[in-house]
């Protein structure tokens, strides 16, 4: 006699207990501390903060530990936590020209006010496995210099003075918030940038790369890439002035794009913009390329059918928490739908065979 499968609840509990054990790994090996993850896997922490849309390195480290290093799972944990947090208010826009930069480079000018600062970059490292690191992690202290407290003006500002680059519209309009309102298309640029900055790094990278290979080419130069910390200020109505409530690390990228002019715009340089939490420069550069590519309509360019020009395609598929959830849901039982397909295929086959027999 057949007994229907029962015990889903016990199976789930046991699976979770096993997962917890696997997450810990060999108990003879020391447990990872959150501080170790935060300090030594900082770029993973940054990615989780950026795509989780929550700036909290300790929570991001916890999410990475809990997810066994699966960063999309960690991003999901942070998102699910973030959505429960009350919204106390909005900060003032951060002033990236006043950033305390640890890195600032321009690919368009050899030297410029504020200087080029290479900073802690993998660029120019030879990608040779460092076996010494496997033995001990000791490092010698790096050289230091006194901090330059001056503002670091934006490269695009210099071009703007000569009217060589498009004007950036200014305004105090409250940007839409895709975490509080359903995404409606067509989206404005602020909404697109929001979606891209929390979008999957791999997806945004591939979209940007495709524009470089000719699918919606935008001729981008990195006008400037900067990484550093900025102050976050909030207006306190009771006080009547803004108060510094903390600082965040950001990566900002501005591309300068060649533009021969269109029916509506004169020849000038145009802009792509990327701004991402933490030291996340691959993402910020990719973001600025995708941003520029999506601006074709506003600049009167032709739509060539390239994926990176297609706002709906990019925005609806950039979110890895959505994508991974829907992708993996096909693991769930589909007995009922599959059964209905089985019946259909059996019936269609029976009809085909009956028709064949009748013909013979």
């Amino acid at each position, binding site marked *: *006699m*057949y007994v*229907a*499968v*029962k*015990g*889903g*609840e016990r*199976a*789930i509990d046991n699976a979770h207990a096993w997962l917890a054990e696997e997450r810990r790994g060999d108990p003879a090996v020391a447990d990872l501390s959150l501080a170790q993850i935060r300090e030594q896997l900082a770029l993973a922490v940054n990615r989780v903060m950026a795509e989780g849309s929550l700036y909290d390195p300790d929570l991001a480290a916890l999410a990475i530990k809990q997810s066994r290093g699966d960063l999309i799972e960690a991003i*999901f944990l942070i*998102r*699910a936590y*973030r*959505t*429960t947090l*009350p919204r106390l208010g909005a900060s003032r826009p951060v002033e990236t020209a006043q950033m305390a930069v640890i890195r600032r480079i321009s690919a368009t000018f050899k030297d410029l006010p504020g200087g080029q600062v290479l900073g802690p970059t993998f660029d120019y490292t030879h990608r040779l496995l460092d076996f010494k690191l496997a033995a001990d992690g000791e490092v010698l202290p790096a050289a230091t210099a006194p901090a330059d407290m001056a503002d670091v003006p934006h490269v695009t500002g210099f071009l703007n003075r000569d009217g060589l680059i498009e004007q950036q519209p200014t305004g105090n309009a409250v940007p839409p918030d895709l*975490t*509080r*309102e*359903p*995404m*409606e*298309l*067509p989206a404005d640029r602020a909404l697109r940038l929001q979606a891209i900055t929390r979008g999957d790094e791999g997806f945004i990278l591939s979209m940007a790369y495709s524009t470089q290979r000719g699918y919606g080419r935008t001729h981008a130069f990195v006008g400037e890439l900067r990484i550093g910390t900025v102050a976050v200020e909030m207006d306190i109505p009771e006080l009547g002035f803004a108060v510094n409530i903390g600082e965040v690390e950001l990566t900002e990228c501005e591309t300068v794009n060649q533009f021969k002019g269109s029916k509506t715009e004169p020849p000038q340089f145009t802009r792509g913009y990327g701004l991402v939490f933490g030291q996340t420069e691959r993402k910020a550069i990719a973001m600025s390329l995708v941003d520029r590519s999506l601006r074709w309509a506003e600049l009167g360019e032709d739509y060539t059918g390239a994926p990176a020009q297609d706002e*709906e395609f990019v925005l*609806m598929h950039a979110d890895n*928490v*959505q994508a*991974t*959830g*829907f*992708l*993996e*849901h096909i693991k*769930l*039982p*589909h*007995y*009922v*739908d599959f*059964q*209905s*397909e*089985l*019946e*259909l295929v059996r*019936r*269609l086959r029976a*009809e085909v065979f009956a028709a064949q027999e009748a013909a013979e």
Partner: protein
Amino acid sequence: MTAQDYNFAYLDEQTKRMIRRAILKGIAVPGYQVPFASREMPMPYGWGTGGVQVTAACLTPDDTLKVIDQGADDTTNAVSIRKFFQRTAGVAVTEATLDATIIQTRHRIPEAALTEGQILVYQVPIPEPLRFLEPRETETRKMHELEEYGLMHVKLYEDIARHGTIATAYAYPVKVEGRYVMDPSPIPKFDNPKLSGSPAIQLFGAGREQRIYAVPPYTHVVSLDFEDHPFVASKAPHDCDLCGAAESYLDEVITDDQGGRMFVCSDTDFCRTRREAGHVGHLGVPVQGGV
């Protein structure tokens, strides 16, 4: 997660209010997909986050909740969602369709007839019935606005031309109150007739796609078809091997590697109730004092 740290039924009251507004709009315009600001839930998108948000917005402390997946109360995801609400809302739960005030479902409508005052919440993966004919949301919204459903009829006609029959077995499109074409979620088309004229409120939540829609009680819902190819609610041509029911939707269970199989009700509560009432199927045994 400790349940006390979260609001009743997990979502904060502002979010519930936003969802309730979308539900009310959906009920006012049957079959219309209302955009709503879906939240990240502590379970993955695609695993019922839309249904969970709708259920959370409808639940009151006096409610009795039933959760089914594929018709069954004990499938893993149904267990997981039921546990979530037990933990965050502390509501009573049941497996009995008739005792539930809210039923969250994935892929089935219960066999037992629903009654006034009950709410059936569907989990919806792709709310747009036209999606696989036109991938762009901007286009499909326009098609709904203009009531431009010719593409769907052409698709159904092409099915008939190719296969002699409409080759859609689940998520079979319906028209609600003569206006909006709606995706009933991936229920087998066997369940479609139960959508129409139901005394219960039927709510559909699509979390990832940020849409809510509704079929209010006693609404006319028609499965799309042609006069010469009328809609047929089909199922496996068998009786349930456990309870002998001839009128319920069946799951096929492979019992050995020699081609052996049996058919059992996909609605576990329906099957259990029948067996407790003394019905015995072909491979079943009489029940003594409950299963």
